[in-house]
C-alpha cells in the first residue's frame, strides 16, 4: 500500500504544465509599451480633430452645406478613432501569465489585423464620409465655379480619398513593422513552444 501522505507530497510537487517558462512580465512590458505608444498617437489625433472642429465651426458657420460636410467627416473620424483606440487598448492589456495555444493564436491574429485595420465597418464609414463630404464641399462651392472647375472638383473629390487610403496603408505598414512585428515574433516563439508541448 502506498502511504497517502507520500502521494500528497508527490502530487503537490509535480511540475506545472503549459508555458510557465515564458517570461510573462517581459511580454506584458512590451505590450504596455505598445499601448503607451498608441495612446500618444491617438491623443495627437484627437487634438488634431478637436482643432479642425473648432476651426471649421468658427470659419464655416455661414456655409451650412460646407459645415455639414466637414461635420460628417469629423464624426466618422471620431468613430473610427474610438474603435481603433479601444482595440489597441485591448491588445495592450493582454495577460500572458497563463497563455494557451488558442489565446496566443488569437493575440497574433489581432496583431496581424493591425497591419491593415481599414477593412472594418468604422473605417468603411469614414472613407464613405470622406468621399461624400468632399463632393458636398465641391457642391457647396458651385456658385463661384465654372462647369469645368466643378468637374475637376468632383474628380479631385473622388481621387483624394483614394490617395488618402493608399497613403494610410503605407503609413500603417511601416508602423506595423516597428510596433507589431516584434510582438508577433515574441508570440510566435511562445506559440511554437506551446504547440510542441501539446504534441
Amino acid at each position, binding site marked *: 500500500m502506498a502511504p497517502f501522505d507520500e*502521494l500528497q507530497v508527490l502530487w*503537490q510537487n509535480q511540475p*506545472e504544465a503549459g508555458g510557465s517558462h515564458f517570461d510573462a512580465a517581459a511580454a506584458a512590458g512590451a505590450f504596455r509599451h505598445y499601448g503607451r505608444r498608441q495612446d500618444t498617437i491617438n491623443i495627437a489625433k484627437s487634438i488634431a480633430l478637436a482643432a479642425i472642429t473648432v476651426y471649421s465651426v468658427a470659419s464655416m458657420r455661414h456655409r451650412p452645406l460646407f459645415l455639414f460636410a466637414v461635420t460628417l467627416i469629423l464624426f466618422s473620424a471620431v468613430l473610427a478613432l474610438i474603435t481603433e483606440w479601444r482595440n489597441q487598448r485591448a491588445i495592450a492589456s493582454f495577460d500572458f501569465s*497563463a497563455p494557451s*495555444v488558442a489565446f496566443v493564436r488569437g493575440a497574433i491574429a489581432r496583431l496581424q489585423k493591425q497591419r491593415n485595420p481599414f477593412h472594418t465597418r468604422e473605417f468603411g464609414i469614414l472613407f464613405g464620409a470622406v468621399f461624400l463630404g468632399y463632393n458636398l464641399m465641391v457642391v457647396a462651392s458651385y456658385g463661384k465655379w465654372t462647369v469645368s472647375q466643378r468637374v475637376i472638383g468632383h474628380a479631385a473629390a473622388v481621387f483624394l480619398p483614394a490617395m488618402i487610403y493608399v497613403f494610410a496603408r503605407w503609413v500603417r505598414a511601416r508602423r506595423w513593422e516597428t510596433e507589431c512585428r516584434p510582438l508577433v515574433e515574441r508570440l510566435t516563439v511562445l506559440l511554437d513552444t506551446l504547440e510542441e508541448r501539446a504534441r
Partner: protein
Amino acid sequence: MNHAERERLFLDLFQQNKSRMHRLCFAYLNSPSDIDDLFQEIMTNLWNALPSFRGDSHPNTWLYRIAVNTALLYRRRQRPSAPLPEIEPPDLSPSTQQQMESAERLTALRRAIAELGDQDRLIITLLLESLSYKEIAEITGLTVNHVGVKISRIKHAIEQRITEVSHGAV
C-alpha cells in the same frame, strides 16, 4: 467592489492558487494545451465572478468552486463522450532511480484519479491539496461525515490501484 479592489483580489488569488489550479486541471485533463486553455478559462471566470463575491466563504474555497464548475463544463464541452486521455508521464527529468520511481508513481496516481467519477475525482484532488474535510464539504456541497466516508473509500481505491500498477497487474 471597485476596479482596483477587484484587480488586487484577483492578483492575490492568482498568486496564491496558480499551482493548485494547475494541479486541479491535471485531475480533469491531460493534454498541456487543454490544461492551459482550462486554466485560462478558470481565471477568466474568476475575474468575471469577482464582483459577485460577498465574502461568505473563504476566497480560496470560493475559487475552488469556480474552478471545479469550469473544469466540469469544459470537459463536457470538449469531449462529451470521449474516453479519458492517455496519461503522459510527468516531465521530472529523471536522473536518479528515486526520481524515476516518483515519476512512475505520479503517473500511476494520475491514472488512478482519471478512473474515478467526477465527484470522487474532485474530492481526492482537494484532499491531495491538503484541504480539510470541512473545506471539501463546503466546496462539494456534501456533509462533513459523507466526505469522510467517501475519502476513506477513495483513498483505499487509489492506494490499491497504485499498488496494482507497481506490481505490474494492470
